[in-house]
């Protein structure tokens, strides 16, 4: 089974600080990590390979520094690594990112694509499902586990806060994984010592230009733009009301009018 895992290198947001003047993330000096949901994806892929054999490749779209994340994935046990990199891809929102990745994947062989549910810096949870749409393959998100079935299909446990489902899906398909449910292995010492010996294949715009046009990529291909990022304002404790639904509706309307919101 050929598995491709999509990963993103993100700042370790447990360590991130907010610039008090601009209100934006201070990224300098903050260590970078593989996005936790993506790392869970690597673990799920490696477990699948251990169960039924195959090959696990890892791909990332990112600046040159993202190479470190790929090496970490190789050290965990991935067989091949691809680095989608170039100025054309910079400034991409989720749609442009998913188009770029899908375009790269069209040139690769895969039975299963695994991505993390969402990235800790954007929290959108869009890229995985968007990619599945571009590629025309089924998408099963929020996977807590992936099990191979005898007929070549996969059995996926989809988990939400209060319930879970078991979903059967054919390959090729795209699955997004949950870090809360899948504990990733450490990099193996042997893997660490061979990680920088393995080749990382760089994919440029030139390699995928038949699958996607320039105006669909990067910031020019992004219909959404980040207007502002800021830390949440601490509010005072609110008021609590216990009323009937009808009274609640009127109460809310009154409060909104009071604050001149409506």
């Amino acid at each position, binding site marked *: 089974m050929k598995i491709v895992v999509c990963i993103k290198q993100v700042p370790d947001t447990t360590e991130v600080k907010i610039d008090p003047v601009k209100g934006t993330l201070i990224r300098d000096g903050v260590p970078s990590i593989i996005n936790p949901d993506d790392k869970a994806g690597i673990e799920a892929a490696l477990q699948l390979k251990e169960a039924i054999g195959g090959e696990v490749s890892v791909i990332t779209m990112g600046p040159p520094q993202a190479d470190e994340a790929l090496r970490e994935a190789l050290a965990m046990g991935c067989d091949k690594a691809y680095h989608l990199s170039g100025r054309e891809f910079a400034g991409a929102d989720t749609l442009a990112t998913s188009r770029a990745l899908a375009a790269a994947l069209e040139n690769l062989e895969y039975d299963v694509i695994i991505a993390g549910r969402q990235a800790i810096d954007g929290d959108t949870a869009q890229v995985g499902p968007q990619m599945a749409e571009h590629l025309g393959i089924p998408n099963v998100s929020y996977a807590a586990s992936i099990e191979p079935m005898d007929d070549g299909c996969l059995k996926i446990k989809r988990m939400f806060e209060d319930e879970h489902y078991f979903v059967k899906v054919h390959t090729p398909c795209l699955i997004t994984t949950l870090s809360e449910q899948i504990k990733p292995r450490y990099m193996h*010492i*042997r893997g660490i*010592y061979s990680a920088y010996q393995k080749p990382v294949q760089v994919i440029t715009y030139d390699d995928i230009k038949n699958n996607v046009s320039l105006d669909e990529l990067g910031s020019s291909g992004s219909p959404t733009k980040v207007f502002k990022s800021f830390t949440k304002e601490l509010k005072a404790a609110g008021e609590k009301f216990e009323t009937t639904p009808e009274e609640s509706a009127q109460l809310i309307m009154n409060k909104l009018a009071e604050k001149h919101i409506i």
Partner: protein
Amino acid sequence: MDVQLSKTHELLRKMVREFAENELKPIAKEIDETYRFPRETIDKYFDNGFMGFDLPVEQGGSGGDMLGYVIVMEELSKVCLPSCSSLSGHNHPVISIIQEQGSEYQKKKYLEMLTSGRKLGSFALTEPNAGSDANGIQSTAIWDGENYILNGSKCFITNGGEAEVFIVVAITDPSIPGSRGKSAFIVEKDFEGFSVGKREKLMGFHGGSICELIFNNVKIPKENLIKKEGMGMKIALGGLAAGRVVVAAEGLGCAQGCIDEAVKYVKERKQFRKRISEFQNTQFVLADMQSRVDIARMAIYNVAKMVDAKIPCTKEAAEVKLFATELANEVARKCVQLMGGYGYSQEYPVEQKMRDAKILEIFEGTSEVQKMIISKEMGVK
């Protein structure tokens, strides 16, 4: 901090630091309080490629180098010194001796046992009457025509109560005094007549398995003699340069771990209406300690590189062992002092580090033995 550390080594440090935090730190206090040897940590060492760290991949190891191993020792010792020593006792000198001196039979059988076979190793030289004076060992292994028959005992043996594969040095020819009458053997726990005696009760290292071994007519097959009769002491003491730089790294990690705890504490603790980190004494004591620790680090990494480049470094290895282990003890004591009553309390980790650190000046060649080596290398006699 060393600009020459490669990306591989940075990746290694990242992994080991995370491993130490998640796997060793949570149980460090418990194993000290309950005198428990954490077998689960040994299993994790096997799972993640720590065992046979610098053994070539073809022989079942991880293909690492001494510089990387020193980083491993440093990061693990920061968090739990006895658990780090259980690992180092397995790799050096047990695996290293078999790899460098073993016959094809011994390498094939025992290197596999000690890596994928998940058997723990232990090196047994010291006896009740032979510590620094290793030549004073009295255990005998006498050839009876079919096997070597081993009698005697060993003490203070790291991993002694938990290991399955031992390297034992004993007298094979009592008529030859000195090192030429002694030989080294590979002994398995299951050999008839082999037993583990008492577990030592020590000032620190409660999470280690430091034990007495008792040999009662243990039958050692002739294939288990390492190299030749009479080479026992040479084999035992031969790999020691590497062992010294490894222990130096354990001292380095222990010292850094103490400083990190003290820095955290002094930034929070208030006395006389100030954080104690605001007092110049606190700042100066920490600056002094950190400078020496950083200099020790630079020296230790350098000696590790010499080992990797196969540049002879008997003197340098002894120097860093001497320096870093004494530094670890000084730093541990000063950090307890900076933390005052809480430093002395078992609620905080530094008192354990201080108790654990003392052994660093004693095992793998006492500080005095290191000075003997260094002065000899200097030509001073």
